[in-house]
């Protein structure tokens, strides 16, 4: 994702939703969205430097992490009930996700919940695909144990 000659506007349209999704996956809707806004604003103010980076989305994800970690994060920051019009899901899923480590949670939410490819997620998170795959595999194992879902349950 080399950003040569990419304007801030183009970057926002292309990578803004992904950046926000990644931070929401990590920190929930409230803090994650705020952190994404902060990160995007930082990018706006420093676009000359940030835009010249090899992976501006990855850099701004880190900036968003720094912002989010300064916030008070209450327990129960992920949705526990399905929104209107969405399929129901197990109420214990959100607490189980929150119990994961941050890399595991972000990875599993981006890839299995939001449908990103491993490559897309790894790029924004600035980790190797193999590392991300490991995080996700461990997350899924933990989730299956927490929710008592076996891999054969189809």
């Amino acid at each position, binding site marked *: 994702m080399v950003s040569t000659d990419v304007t801030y506007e183009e970057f926002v349209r292309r990578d803004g*939703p992904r950046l926000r999704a990644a931070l929401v996956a990590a920190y929930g*809707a409230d803090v994650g*969205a*705020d952190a994404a806004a902060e990160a995007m604003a930082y990018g706006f103010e420093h676009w000359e430097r940030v835009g010249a980076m090899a992976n501006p989305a990855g850099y701004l994800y880190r900036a968003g992490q720094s912002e989010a970690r300064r*916030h*008070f994060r209450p327990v129960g920051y992920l949705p526990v009930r399905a929104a209107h019009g*969405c399929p129901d899901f197990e109420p214990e899923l959100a607490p189980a996700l929150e119990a994961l480590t941050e890399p595991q949670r972000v990875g*599993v939410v981006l890839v299995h919940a939001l449908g990103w490819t491993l490559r897309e997620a790894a790029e924004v998170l600035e980790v190797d695909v193999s590392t991300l795959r490991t*995080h996700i595999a461990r997350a899924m194992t933990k989730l299956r144990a927490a929710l008592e879902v076996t891999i054969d349950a189809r």
Partner: protein
Amino acid sequence: MPDELERQLRAFGDTLAAETDEPVSPETAVRTHPHRRSPRRWAIVGAAACVVAVLVGFAFVGTRGSAPSAPTSTSGAVDRVLVPAPDVPVDALGLAGDGWTLTRHSRSRFAVIDEIGCDEMRELDALDGHEVVIDEYTGSGEAFLRVTQLQYADRATALDRLTPLTDLRDCEAANLDGYEQLDLDASPDVEVSAHRQTGSAWLAVVDADGGAVLLRVGNAADDETLQLLVERASTALRREATAASPEDSTTPLDDLAALVGEDPLGLQADGWEQTGLELTRYESMTWPVCGTATEDLEGAATVAASYGTPSGAGVFVQLVRVDEATARAALGAALVARSPCPSSSEFVLADDVVAEAQPAEGRWTLRGPDLVRALVAPPGDDVLPLVAIVSGTPDVIDGVLDRADAFLSGEAAGRRR
């Protein structure tokens, strides 16, 4: 075919997306927090910026940057017993001159410590409630060394609190990325817990009385260096054990803590929770003022109390109180630096935090790019400076700053009487 868990996750993802479904455009991205977006704001010049920068900067330096602090922790810390650190001199391990340059010596109290482990930020309470002495060094290249000295009630307690910082047994094997447990020689009366990752290492050296030296070494973690550090730490602990330290130099900090710890803005009655209390004294400090100017400050002390709301993610209040000597030094530095201050309202507080200040009815309101605003009492003999740093939605910020303003007004009136 996805299994049941994958189907559940997809449904969860749909809900998460629905909750955050908002078109992202360059306009909305930079409009979200309007008070920090207008380039015109960055053109407002003020020497007041210098004043606020110095005062607020204490808060940032005291709680951010390389110091292992955690102002946003979730542990209540007000009623904890604070254990004074031993009377540790500057460069107690005698490393300055061994190729290390001492860059910071400070005495702090932490509610908790945030440290990175296993690719994530982990919140540990190893330093909870303890006054610690921190020396930071730089070496050749990017090498750094942080020496944290503290005192626990006994050896078992010290090991119980510090071992998680060096012991990676909680980490999953696949994430260790080269961590290894080190077997370093130590004196018979001390115990060492040490782990190393590529480029850095953690070491905890604990003596029989609960004295402890916690070392974090970056980019210089060869065996010889680490062994030297253990020996120096062992020697320093023995020296401390034989040295009496009856003088309590922390009384002023305790007084300040009482001022801030009593919730002067009445936030707890409204459902806010105090999430941290940190006391910091800078025995020596070079403080950047208005860009290139610097000012040496000695004896600066700050107390920062943090508040959050259980239901309001993204809401955070930090109150910082500085003692009178610090205030005078800081304000003096700001005034001295007024003329070299560039003709721009931008100045760096720490870690690329740029802020501007605007005077408002005798008080200084700081607006920073991190969705942070601060209210600072004006310079004067009748008011101790208090900085309320608030992050959150504009409505919350306004409400808290109104309270801070009312509190300062009442205090000023009381002092005048």
